[in-house]
């Protein structure tokens, strides 16, 4: 799978144009011989297949090659950008889970009555927000009008709030509906009726009996969301000038910096694949029935 992804990507990027020409721009007069020398130095004169096999060989030992611009090892660039993106991803996932579980349960319990409908309307509105516009509106409100938070960059906790909130709000809108639907299914089960008949308090029934039984489908959905979440972060990073993988990838595209773009996409795909693996492991942790098998 990783191979399929990297092959498509690295083939596609090479069609975008000649990085040697991009590099030479602004260097004054250059001859065709100069360009050839640059190509040779970067290994661009070899065939696509040779370049690709070289990339794969490096990948096995964790070497993504060097950036065409400045020659920094790609792995260094990625190591610098990855924590910023990961922090954002997990913060927004955390926010959305913490908010959407109680709201989703509330909606399921009061099905058809006004709390359910209010939650439903808010989640529909949240689903319809373009993430980058929500980001811009937060900047307008919190940075420009009230001057509470820094509008961009990554300096301390205060600059972290808005990017995480943007993605958190949009994810919450989706997750509330997931929690509601799963919960509705669970609440119909007989063991919930038994728990209630035993005279357990409402909170214990909902959060202990029902929620634990919802956790398998919910974890699956949260895992599947991760790809979309990373995609959204790429866009939101641009608005907040967040020094993460999205910004790195975007700059690499404009500079035709193949090794960097290849590295970023490989790392992102690996992350998505490993999240799905973690999801499988998590099943066993939350559900004793899976553990026994």
């Amino acid at each position, binding site marked *: 799978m990783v191979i399929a992804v990297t092959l498509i990507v690295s083939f596609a990027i090479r069609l975008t144009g000649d990085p040697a020409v991009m590099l030479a721009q602004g260097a004054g007069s250059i001859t065709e011989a100069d360009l050839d020398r640059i190509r040779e130095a970067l290994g661009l004169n070899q065939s696509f297949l040779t370049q690709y096999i070289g990339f794969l060989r490096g990948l096995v030992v964790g070497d993504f090659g060097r950036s065409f611009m400045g020659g920094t090892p790609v792995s260094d660039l990625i190591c610098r950008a990855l924590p910023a993106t990961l922090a954002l991803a997990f913060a927004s996932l955390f926010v959305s889970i913490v908010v959407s579980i109680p709201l989703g349960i509330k909606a399921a319990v009061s099905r058809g009555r006004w709390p359910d409908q209010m939650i439903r309307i808010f989640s529909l509105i949240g689903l319809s927000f373009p993430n980058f516009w929500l980001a811009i509106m937060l900047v307008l409100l919190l940075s420009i009008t009230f001057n509470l938070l820094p509008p961009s960059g990554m300096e301390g906790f205060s600059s972290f709030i808005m990017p995480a909130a943007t993605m958190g709000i949009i994810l919450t809108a989706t997750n509330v*509906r997931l929690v509601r639907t799963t919960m509705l299914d669970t609440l119909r089960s007989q063991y919930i009726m038994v728990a209630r008949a035993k005279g357990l308090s409402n909170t214990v029934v909902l959060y202990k009996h029902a929620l634990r039984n919802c956790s398998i489908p919910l974890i699956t959905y949260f895992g599947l969301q991760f790809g979309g979440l990373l995609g959204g972060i790429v*866009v939101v990073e641009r608005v907040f000038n967040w020094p993460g993988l999205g910004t790195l990838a975007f700059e690499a595209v404009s500079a035709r910096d193949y090794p960097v773009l290849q590295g970023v996409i490989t790392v992102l795909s690996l992350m*998505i694949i490993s999240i799905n693996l973690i999801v499988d492991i998590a099943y066993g942790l939350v559900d004793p029935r899976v553990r026994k098998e």
Partner: protein
Amino acid sequence: MTAAIKTDKLKRFKNLEFILGVLLVGGIGLAVIFSGWLFPGGGSELNLAYRLTPPLAEPGFPLGTDPLGRDVLARVIIGGEISLKVGVYSALGAVVIGIIMGLVSGYYGGFLDMIVMRFADVQLALPFILLAITFIAVIGGGLTNMIILLIISQWVQYARLVRGSVLSLRDREFILAAKAIGVKDIRILFQHLLPNLIGPVIVLMTLNVANNILLESSLTFLGLGVDPVIPSWGGMLAEGRTYLQTAWWVSVFPGLAILLTVLGLNLLGDWLRDALDPTGRTSL
């Protein structure tokens, strides 16, 4: 008794959802269709004397003007054309391809089925925006390319959905009966299977149009979509962002237009899903 009241209330809410959705989508759709007639200038005439006029400050510019003195209202309405075109055409294209591939792979199985499903797996592992950034860098932006890109990335969803339904319908009596009396395969696929599985496909399509509008505007916002010269919601937002400190209206209204259009489509999709599937099995 209480249950009856509950469903009654739910029904009334559902109707409200439908009415709101129709109003939003219909209103914006009509405004965009008649935009040429409403704003013959195409929203690009420059009024340099009125640069960055706030909303309601000057007659003739109800939503204010942008840094070049262009009417924001006119540009928002005309800009809708790009988003609606991309949203609708790409969803239609993806539906047609997805239905055909889903029907064929579900009905015949085998090698083609395997290919379709592998393709779907690979797509799950790639965030769309990154794929888009890469491919648009290759083939260039523009309306047609964006539609093609969205079709390529989204037909799989329909194929999976259709395939799943075909697998559950394929061995039902009415299909066996049709086969027994010698109906041709192509007729079984399109006349017997298709009508039985089209409901969820239409729901998915409505939500897909909404999603495509969001994706289109994000890409255009990043400078990877349609030509910035043509008014479009994403493009206007990218321009307006620079003037956020001084002129909020330039970035508020295009975004609001996206929000309302997508909200309208989501409301319709939601209503449609409940109307077609009253048990709520598919409602997520």
